[in-house]
């Protein structure tokens, strides 16, 4: 710069020097221009530079002023499942790794199997392991909050729905990991000669019916939904969902290890959901699946060798001076009396079904239509915010009507909310003209949905009230259906439920369901335990009707493993069916007391629901604390006594998102991509031109 201004002062003497002077002048001007351009471009360049230093894919959050916050907590999970006989015990460790340099609190909403009994929580901070305890919900929350403000590391796990939980981990040190280990057990499903175990890893965003509750701040809390009149805890059960590529490459991954000791030789072990490494070791099978994305349910199925399928099983455990027995009896009755049916298909076409789910649902419905015989009558009802039926009332399954139904089904699209109550009412209301010959027809409702609703309890009550002599069957759709809804709706509806995992898997489970639906094989089932009847408490207290391939499972307290268990029921023709089981052959089992306690708690909650009153909170809490179980009124809390966080440091709370179930489309609108390449191109072009100009001029100068 000094050079160019100095040059201007030179006096011209010759034409040659004049030319040189002009060139030098141009050089000076362009240098000035270059400096100006540099000043102009620099902010853009600096911005681009700052962005590049962020590692791609680490989850960021933004504060109110739009500034980037530090990278979030990275989460990974490990499922260690041990199946023995009819129970599966799982140790689920979740590691919350704080990658930032500030103290953090992590909040994570997660699903567990719908029949899980959570019985243990341990927290590991560095070298220390702290065993958590079951406390009444409010008390546990208080303990946790006290520890959080005192700067101690703490973990708290609460139940919102039987299959939906929240884990809170306070004061995760910067750069450190706190791992929270959860122990739970779940019964294994056995149906039609096949065992099945499902482990949900994520949840479908649920629809929250009702108006936003009054007096709530407009701000979002932990979830995307606001509490509504029908779902008061909506914000607690609606974690944000993200796509798999929005989280870090190591976050939201799970390692699954499973040991199956079925007690009998197995023919095959398969998973329709995940690739597996399987190792057979005598009767036990080791299964492993590593670093799987937590975006769909993990499903395992295993089959005994042909001819070796179990027909009965007894397990016994003695726990705190009480005897617990678990029995399974497979009636093995296949005769069914086929009656003409009125079949109503209800299909969920709400926004949560968009994507792969609606395709599965359509194909499930088409298969259902294919099972109809000319004697049957049928109807198809679809619903989202609104309910629409194909026919005014069930019509005969003639070729013409079926063709119409097939076209109707093929054109179904998914969008809108999930207002299930009006659809259920429509399906369960029997039109006056159809009820004339009610005695000769079986009325059945097939409900095809992902169950992504927040008001389950109200729907169960409605099913119970409107059911009458009908039966309700549920078909769960998608990679993370709400199985609690499927199972309970079918139970209140005196029917069966099934879940479809992926498109290739549609036909198997559905065929079994439709075959079983033709008629219940055993009604009026009675179970008679030996010993004095007053002391014996068995669950389920009232056995429902059994369908083809379905076993009778009972868990009981207060009877020793001696004597004979007598079971009887009524066959379709009206004949009696009887079977007895010698309890002395009971195999040792464990965890039966927890299974029994969980069933007892469910029973207490159910009976309160039946009379429409408040459940016996004190009794449920007492049972849960006695058996160290999680329940609607008890939760687990673990506190590290030594304070970790210095009093000066603060800890921000971070709500961890869950992965959107595979194959589904975000129910809510994503923000569109609204930037162009224009500034980048312009900046690059200008910088390039500048360099070219500078190099050119330097070259000129060197040659002159």
């Amino acid at each position, binding site marked *: 710069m000094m050079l160019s201004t100095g040059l201007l002062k030179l006096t011209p003497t010759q034409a040659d020097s004049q030319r040189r002077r002009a060139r030098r002048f141009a050089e000076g001007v362009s240098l000035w221009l270059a400096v100006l351009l540099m000043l102009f471009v620099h902010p853009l360049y600096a911005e681009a530079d700052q962005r590049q230093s962020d590692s791609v894919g680490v989850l960021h959050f933004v504060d109110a002023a739009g500034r980037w916050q530090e990278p979030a907590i990275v989460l990974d999970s490990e499922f260690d499942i041990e199946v023995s006989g009819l129970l599966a015990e799982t140790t689920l460790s979740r590691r919350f790794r704080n990658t930032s340099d500030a103290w953090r609190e992590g909040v994570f909403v997660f699903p567990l199997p719908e029949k899980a009994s959570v019985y243990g929580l341990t927290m590991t901070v560095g070298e220390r392991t702290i065993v958590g305890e079951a406390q009444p919900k409010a008390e546990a929350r208080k303990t946790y909050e006290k520890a959080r403000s005192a700067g101690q590391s703490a973990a708290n796990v609460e139940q919102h729905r039987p299959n939906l939980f929240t884990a809170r981990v306070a004061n995760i040190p910067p750069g450190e990991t706190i791992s929270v280990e959860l122990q739970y057990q779940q019964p294994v499903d056995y149906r039609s000669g096949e065992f099945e175990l499902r482990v949900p890893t994520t949840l479908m965003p649920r629809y929250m019916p009702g108006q936003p509750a009054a007096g709530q701040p407009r701000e979002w809390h932990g979830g995307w939904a606001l509490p509504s009149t029908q779902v008061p805890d909506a914000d607690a059960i609606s974690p944000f969902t993200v796509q798999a590529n929005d989280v870090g490459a190591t976050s939201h991954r799970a390692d699954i290890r499973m040991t199956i000791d079925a007690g009998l030789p197995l023919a095959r072990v398969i998973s329709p959901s995940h690739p597996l490494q399987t190792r057979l070791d005598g009767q036990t099978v080791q299964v492993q699946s590593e670093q799987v994305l937590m975006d769909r349910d993990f499903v395992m199925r295993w089959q005994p060798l042909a001819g070796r399928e179990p027909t009965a099983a007894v397990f016994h455990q003695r726990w705190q001076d009480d005897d617990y027995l678990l029995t399974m009896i497979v009636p093995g009755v296949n005769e069914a009396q086929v009656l003409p049916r009125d079949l109503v298909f209800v299909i969920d076409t709400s926004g949560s079904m968009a994507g792969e789910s609606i395709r599965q649902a359509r194909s499930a419905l088409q298969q259902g239509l294919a099972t109809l015989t000319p004697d049957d009558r049928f109807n198809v009802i679809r619903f989202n915010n609104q309910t629409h039926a194909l026919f005014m009332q069930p019509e005969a399954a003639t070729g013409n009507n079926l063709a119409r139904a097939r076209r109707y089904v093929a054109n179904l699209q998914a969008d809108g909310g999930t207002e299930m109550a009006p659809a259920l009412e429509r399906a369960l209301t029997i039109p006056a003209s159809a009820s004339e010959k009610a005695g000769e027809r079986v009325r059945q409702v097939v409900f095809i949905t992902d169950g992504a609703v927040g008001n389950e309890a109200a729907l169960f009550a409605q099913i119970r009230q409107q059911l009458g002599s009908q039966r309700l069957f549920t078909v769960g759709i998608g990679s993370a259906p709400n199985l609690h809804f499927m199972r309970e709706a079918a139970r209140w509806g005196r029917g069966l439920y099934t879940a479809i995992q992926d498109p290739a898997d549609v036909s198997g489970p559905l065929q079994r369901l439709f075959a079983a639906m033709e008629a219940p094989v055993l009604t009026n089932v009675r179970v008679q335990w030996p010993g004095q009847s007053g002391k014996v408490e068995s669950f389920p207290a009232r056995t429902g009707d059994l369908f083809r391939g379905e076993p009778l499972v009972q868990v009981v307290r207060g009877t020793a493993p001696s004597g004979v268990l007598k079971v009887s029921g009524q066959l379709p023709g009206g004949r009696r069916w009887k079977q007895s089981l010698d309890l002395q052959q009971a195999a040792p089992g464990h965890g039966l007391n927890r299974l029994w306690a969980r069933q007892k708690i469910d029973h207490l909650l159910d009976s309160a629901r039946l009379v429409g009153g408040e459940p016996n909170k004190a009794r449920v809490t007492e049972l849960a604390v006695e058996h160290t179980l999680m329940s609607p009124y008890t939760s687990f809390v673990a506190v590290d006594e030594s304070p970790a966080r210095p009093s000066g440091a603060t800890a921000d709370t971070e709500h961890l998102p869950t992965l959107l179930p595979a194959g589904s489309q975000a129910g809510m*609108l994503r*923000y569109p991509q*609204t*930037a162009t390449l224009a500034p980048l191109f312009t900046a690059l072009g200008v910088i390039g031109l500048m360099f070219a100009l500078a190099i050119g001029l330097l070259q000129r100068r060197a040659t002159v």
Partner: protein
Amino acid sequence: MSRLLLLLLTCSTTLLVFGLWIPLKAVVAQELLELAWAESQARQAETRPWPWADTWPVARLTVPELGDSMIVLAGGHGESLAFGPGQVLGADGSQGPVIIAGHRDTHFDQLQYLKTGSELRLQDRAGGWRHYRVQATRIVDSRSERIDTRALADDALILVTCYPFDGMDTRGPLRYVVEARAEMPLNRNQLEPMDTVAGI
């Protein structure tokens, strides 16, 4: 050496031309869209601005304070956003919330000057104007937040663009959101041309 220099020069010029082409296209397209908008208002039908376009004008958005007026196209996909702001939610003539997205580098770079209380006007195909007042502006992370269309009021207008305004990153997760509410409910009958009832 001079060949390398020439190469650098050519590349930079090309980049610059491409970079300037995007805003130029946006400006030129708006002129064509004005014609299409006038035609669609006259014929009360979807009118494509050019035969191969896969979008059409659905509304006119003006910001009186900034003297800005632009034609809004149907759909929030890249094809329509290249030529004008795109209407992501809301159909012509129907009640309900409206969401409009636009490129921060072209049409919606003016959004940064909007403040709470600024006026916005939206004209539909029937010619009726609807007046909105900006209620709030905020910045969201598009990875952790979605637009819950059910929670929106029926008279809400939401403008979305990328953030930061002078950013270079085309795939950045931040969005600048302007939330506005209608000042008074639109009275459609008042805007009905008189001659439609004259024939009775």
